[in-house]
């Protein structure tokens, strides 16, 4: 990873902490949008453009707008303090947990793009998709082929879940706002 990618990691970590600490909800939402944008750019550095586009459109765009609309309809308590008070014992426990987890997981993590990584160690599945996508389906984007053809039934389930969530929201909110 380049220096730009490491800068992005620092940016994402800082905005994540700031989101948790800001006392004003509006500030937290704006910083959270910046966090999502940083994650989206980071995903492109990790060679996952499909995920990056989803994060940019849904995470930075739609989620921010929906959260802004939600707090626009609530009251904003004014306060002199900018940041939340930190609970020190909880911070120590969580920090120790984080250090232990990172010390356990990071040494076992492969470098980005390592051809010997575990993700490639299952050639029956991943290798099959990469080698046969174009012959089997005629499309060049293997991600689309997996989503729409090889795992089409799973995608159908996901689409129906999105549909059901939308309809349920309309039914719940519809009684109050569209009456």
């Amino acid at each position, binding site marked *: 990873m380049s220096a730009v990618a490491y800068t992005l990691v620092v940016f994402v970590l800082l905005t994540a902490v700031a989101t948790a600490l800001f006392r004003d909800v509006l500030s937290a939402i704006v910083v959270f949008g910046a966090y999502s944008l940083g994650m989206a750019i980071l995903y492109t550095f990790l060679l996952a453009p499909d995920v990056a586009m989803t994060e940019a459109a849904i995470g930075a765009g739609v989620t921010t707008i929906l959260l802004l609309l939600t707090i626009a309809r609530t009251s904003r308590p004014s306060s002199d303090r900018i940041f939340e008070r930190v609970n020190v014992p909880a911070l120590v426990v969580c920090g120790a947990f984080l250090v232990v987890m990172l010390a356990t997981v990071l040494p076992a993590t492969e470098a980005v793009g390592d051809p010997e990584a575990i993700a490639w160690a299952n050639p029956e599945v991943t290798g099959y998709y990469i080698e046969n996508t174009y012959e*089997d389906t005629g499309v060049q984007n293997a991600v*689309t082929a997996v989503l729409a053809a090889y795992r089409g*039934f799973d995608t*159908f389930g996901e689409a129906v879940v999105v549909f059901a969530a939308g309809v349920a929201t309309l039914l719940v909110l519809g009684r109050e706002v569209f009456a």
Partner: protein
Amino acid sequence: MSYQDTYSESQVILTAVKIIAPFTLTYGLFMTFHGADTPGGSFQGGAIIGVTVLMLAFAFGIEPTREWLRNAVLVGLVAGGVAVFIGVGLAAMALGGNFLEYDRFFEVWGIRQKWGMEAIEIGGIALIVAGVVITLFFATAAGFTPTRTDGRGEDE
């Protein structure tokens, strides 16, 4: 026809959205129609198309946009997307294959597998995602009228 809810005083938002909206809509459509061969796809493209409508609503007022895109139209889009997805899947079964087995379309009708996938991507997932994003936005925003600096809109 004039609406109380239009952000007529914000020239910055209005001008910016007027310039950006055609490009985002084109980008969303490109991503939807070109997702089979380039990064992206109908989920991302549908989300960007939905966000374009959200931008228009921010600039031109939420209520006028909601009257323009009625709830029935949006629910029809989402339900139509699910129907197209189910339809393609069941059509493959009707031709003697499994659910969404695109090979059957090629063997029976000579339609290449790619077009079956494009059908569920463009006619199914993109419609569902765009419709749900817009629906959620309007459901959250309905009845919400921002307070004007000169006091208009407070009693609505």
